[in-house]
């Protein structure tokens, strides 16, 4: 058919054609109230140092937020368990946002339902919505567990989840022994990571309590296993990588909250609704494991408290292990918890990554970067930057309110920065938005910005290339399939960053071309 093919441009090129440009020019007349000069002036001012200060004094309004809300995190947490249906108790819109938000990042369907509360629910409470909703959802989607989280609506009217679910059982809407876990996750507190934490903690505790078991760490068949928790993990590739590492150690383990199956299922001709996930029966057993390995300690605050408090397990808490040093620490932690030596294969892999570091370092040395993201990811990224000679300059944490341990986190970040001369230029911002970041990028320029797709506009305005790392990444494909943790992840991160630097060199306006690099 190629002979007959007609060239039909899509909008990216089509609308640059003269006739369209003209059409748009004509529209300028409506663009009052300000003149072109006034606009240019305002734009220039928004880029000035004076405005930077004003911008940081801003209290009232958030401009370009870079966090999502608690229930979104809870939905992701629920999808980490086998045949578990996330159920969002509130008006239907939120759920629809969560589904498309997550789907756009992972390029996979997101099964989740809502109790679709409406005005009557606002007046009379959402009990009947909950009861009908549970009944319908179980009949329609045949889950083995339902994980209920709330939106702000249900929280403001003060719905009592525990009582509602109890009533649903009494009325026979769901069976007595059908597991329904729930978490209170108002959007006006915390963020996606707090919501993730709340749901994981509640799933663990509720399934454990139902089993009637008592915790006895390091006993029985399960006693040789390790519990592993990755946290709010936007990279499915990271699950594969941690498995590879644990398998290399030849240790047994249970991943608590593994949504990689749901977000990396094969296209084999049949969509199944539920894929993978931690087996429900494995959750109470996990209370007997020899210890727990936590890879996002700030995200999993409450969960850790629960595991150490109720399950009485030793915990190794890390932040997202990015780069060689952080991976070293990860291996040490596994070694310590299990008593197993670090395997040869990983040692060799480490050597290869160090080799890659040495190859690339001339292009990375002294590069100034801005970082934006979730707390644990940022700690990982900072560590990575420091070990390859990149200088973090602006560090913007997506979380900020009281629920988040901002002060402790900041202290840890500053201590980490203080370990290296490359960290001396950095300033850490907690609870600022991407409009703040824009001011920083423009007034104190850097070579690269590292963050999610949402950082794109600020980076564009400042003329800085963006390295896409974190959540969400809408506008690139398959980034989440490649791990960024472990030695392999360090290599991937290095590749990603150094090649953007090299591309910049190619785009150098001098027009010089060299093939040597």
């Amino acid at each position: 058919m190629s002979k007959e093919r007609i060239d039909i441009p899509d909008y990216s090129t089509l609308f640059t054609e003269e006739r369209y440009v003209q059409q748009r020019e004509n529209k300028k007349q409506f663009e009052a109230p300000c003149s072109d000069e006034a606009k240019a002036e305002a734009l220039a001012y928004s880029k000035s140092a004076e405005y930077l200060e004003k911008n940081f004094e801003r209290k009232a309004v958030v401009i370009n937020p870079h966090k999502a809300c608690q229930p979104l995190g809870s939905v992701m947490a629920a999808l980490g368990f086998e045949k578990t249906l996330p159920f969002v108790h509130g008006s239907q819109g939120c759920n629809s946002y969560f589904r498309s938000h997550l789907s756009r990042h992972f390029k996979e369907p997101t099964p989740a339902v809502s109790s679709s509360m409406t005005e009557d629910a606002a007046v009379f409470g959402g009990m009947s919505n909950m009861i009908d909703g549970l009944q319908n959802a179980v009949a329609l989607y045949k889950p083995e567990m339902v994980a209920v989280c709330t939106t702000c609506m249900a929280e403001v009217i003060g719905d009592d989840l525990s009582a509602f679910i109890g009533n649903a059982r009494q009325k026979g809407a769901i069976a007595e022994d059908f597991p329904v876990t729930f978490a209170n996750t108002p959007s006006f507190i915390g963020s996606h990571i707090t919501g993730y934490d709340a749901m994981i903690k509640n799933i663990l505790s509720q399934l454990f309590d139902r089993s009637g078991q008592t915790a006895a760490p390091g006993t029985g068949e399960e006693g040789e296993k390790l519990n592993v928790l990755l946290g709010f993990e936007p990279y499915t590739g990271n699950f594969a990588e941690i498995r590879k590492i644990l398998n290399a150690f030849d240790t047994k383990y249970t991943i608590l909250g593994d949504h990689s199956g749901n977000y990396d299922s094969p296209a084999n001709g049949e969509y199944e609704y539920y894929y993978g996930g931690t087996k429900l029966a494995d959750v109470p057993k996990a209370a007997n494991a020899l210890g727990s390995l936590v890879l996002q300690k700030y995200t999993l605050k409450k969960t850790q408290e629960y595991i150490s408090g109720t399950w009485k397990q030793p915990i190794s808490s890390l932040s997202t292990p990015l780069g060689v040093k952080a991976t070293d620490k990860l291996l040490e932690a596994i070694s310590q918890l299990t008593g197993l030596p670090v395997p040869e294969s990983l040692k060799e892999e480490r050597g290869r990554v160090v080799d890659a570091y040495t190859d690339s370092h001339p292009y990375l040395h002294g590069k100034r970067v801005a970082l934006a993201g979730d707390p644990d990811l940022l700690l990982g990224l900072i560590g990575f930057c420091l070990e390859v000679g990149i200088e973090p300059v602006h560090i913007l944490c997506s979380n900020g309110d009281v629920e988040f341990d901002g002060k402790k986190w900041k202290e840890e970040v500053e201590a980490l920065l203080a370990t290296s001369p490359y960290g001396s230029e950095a300033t850490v911002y907690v609870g600022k938005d991407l409009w703040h970041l824009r001011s920083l990028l423009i007034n104190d320029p850097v070579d690269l910005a590292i963050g999610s797709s949402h950082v794109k506009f600020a980076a564009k305005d400042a003329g800085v290339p963006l390295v896409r790392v974190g959540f969400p990444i809408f506008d690139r494909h398959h980034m989440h399939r490649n791990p960024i943790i472990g030695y392999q992840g360090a290599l991937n991160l290095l590749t990603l960053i150094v090649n953007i630097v090299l591309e910049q060199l190619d785009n150098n306006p001098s027009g010089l071309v060299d093939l040597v690099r």
Partner: protein
Amino acid sequence: MEPIRKEELDDQACGSMAPKSKPCPRPKPGEAAGGCSFDGAQITLLPIMDAAHLVHGPVACAGNSWESRGSLSSGPSLSQYGFATDLGNNDIIFGGEKKLRDSIDYIAGRFTPPAIFVYSTCVTALIGEDMDAVCKEASDRLGIPIVPVNSPGFVGSKNLGNRLAGDALLQYVIGTGEPEQETPLGVNLIGEYNIAGEMWDIEKLMNQAGITLLSRITGDARYKEITWAHRAKANMVVCSRALLGLAKQMESKYGIPYFEGSFYGAKETTYSLRQMAFLLNDREMERRVDRLTEREENRLAHDLRPYRKILKGKKAVLYTGGVKSWSVISALKELGIQVVGVGTNKSSDEDVQRIADRVGDDTEYIPEGGASRIIKTVRERKADIMIAGGRNMYVAMKEQIPFVDINQERHKAYAGYEGLLRLAKELVDSMVNPIWKLASSPAPWDKEGSYDR
């Protein structure tokens, strides 16, 4: 917040023939339902590109919805900014009105927008904020229109939100300005959001026919042009479900006649242009439109030939809402495609009637959502392609079904004559891609007889 008369709104939100038409289907608890009214209101108003859009509520309502629309702008980008008052725990208890006032002041001072739209959310509606009063006070003080949009998520579906946004326009915007010069042949487009630039293609056609597009409501719109929408000679309602009420009220208030039309498919496009000319009541214009549409149709017929050869006799399942549910059927039929299944989940009675007028008796109606239900139809009817919104795309991919995105996240414009050509190309490209062969054939070692087990 003013109490919302739910039943009445439901009726109007659903389509024209109220009270005869059935009310919007209530969302059923426990299903994966669609967006909320807040979402719907934003969809309608965000394409007013030079205005600021401030979400009054917790940061998440804004954070989750921000940057998810494919409405293109030809200039200003203020509407792209995600503004939120970011209500926290304390504000829920003590009220967020001060935060709202300060936010409005900041935006007005810093971004000097021609207007600010302020959206209520579930939270602000429930804690009883008097948004209207704050907006009015700020508007008087700052001297720019501050438009409250009372469409919290829980009042109902996305469609109802579209309609509530229309109410806000009617109440606060339309009729507050005058065009610089008189435009005797001006038409408003209502409910066209410039997804992937579709509005621009339509505008080009209108220009060629000598029809002035007076106000865009609201694709790639400027605030000012909507203020003088009442000076149009005719209204065309492009997305009937969403903003029909607006057109009707403009008819009774300003005497502007309206019609419902679509630009999907050559026939619909021609009909729409003719109808505009008819309502403008200008003989010379009618002749010009006839000449234009004939020329365009001929050219299209020629350009489409290679695609039609491939598309003829192919079967499609269409799952989309509102106007597209029937207008896209016309477009597909012109390409020789048979629609074997069509979603009616979000369709009003009139939509269903229009669907029925366009499809054969053996077409299956899919009344309720859920990806599995759509897939089942695709399988049973042996359809070659599925045409739906982005959220269903990933399920289609799992099931190895060629797919074309027809909703708001797409990057291709399908309106008008050129749009139909683009749609044809997209359909063909999606169906002939070699990956389908690869995906559906077993790996070499699984092939029968290829090796001994």
